[in-house]
């Protein structure tokens, strides 16, 4: 009788935030590792999806391999957050390449020059 009052497959947003945390954290760590390894174009994206597959397997193991007592579908564990984490991955993947070339990218140089000039104008 209780199950008629309460929806059976209601997932708490807290659990979804656990999934999101794991995905984003692993995307950031994977991005840093891909940057250190110096992976190029397609190899980096393949590496990202390998890391996400590892995360999916680990999440399945965390759910003790009984997905349907914790989630409503497999997509929650396999797909959710994969493409959101891609943005974090690319950010942390390309950041070391700026360090590698040991100079600022051109837009930042322009920006810093502009800042210096405006400071000089303000001070004079």
């Amino acid at each position, binding site marked *: *009788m*209780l*199950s008629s*009052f*309460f929806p*059976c*497959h*209601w*997932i*708490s947003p*807290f*659990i979804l*935030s*656990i999934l999101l*945390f*794991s995905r984003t*954290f*692993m995307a950031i*760590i*994977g991005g*840093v*590792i891909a940057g*250190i*390894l*110096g992976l190029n174009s397609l190899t980096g994206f393949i590496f990202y999806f390998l*890391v996400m597959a*590892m*995360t999916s397997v*680990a*999440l399945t*193991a*965390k*759910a003790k391999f009984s997905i349907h*007592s*914790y*989630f*409503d579908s497999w997509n929650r564990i396999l797909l959710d957050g994969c493409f959101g984490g891609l943005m974090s991955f690319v950010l942390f993947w390309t950041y*070391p390449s700026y*360090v*590698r070339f040991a100079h600022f990218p051109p837009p930042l140089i322009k920006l810093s020059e502009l800042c210096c000039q405006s400071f000089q104008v303000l001070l004079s």
Partner: protein
Amino acid sequence: MGAGFLVGVIGVLILSHATYSTIQYRALLKITEEEFSGPPIDVVIELIVSLVLCLWAAMAAPGNFKSIHPQSEENRVVALPANLDFMIFNHRGKIFPLETELKLK
């Protein structure tokens, strides 16, 4: 949260050490004018170890999954209708005739 968080901190520290080693290695390559084909083997081992530690931290730190079934052992849903303190009888429904033949289904 404590142990998982600590493992994650250790993983990030190993990762930053690997980053520092790679920067030094690249500086060395710049002096000897060689091409970078990949970090040295000890850095790769450090990366693998930190990846495993961070994977562990990502699983352990945020918290445990809770079952979605209301009948489960670890269920935390407090059933309000089962709690007699919250039952209210003094409402406008009392002017309607009581249907004693009504069956709960």
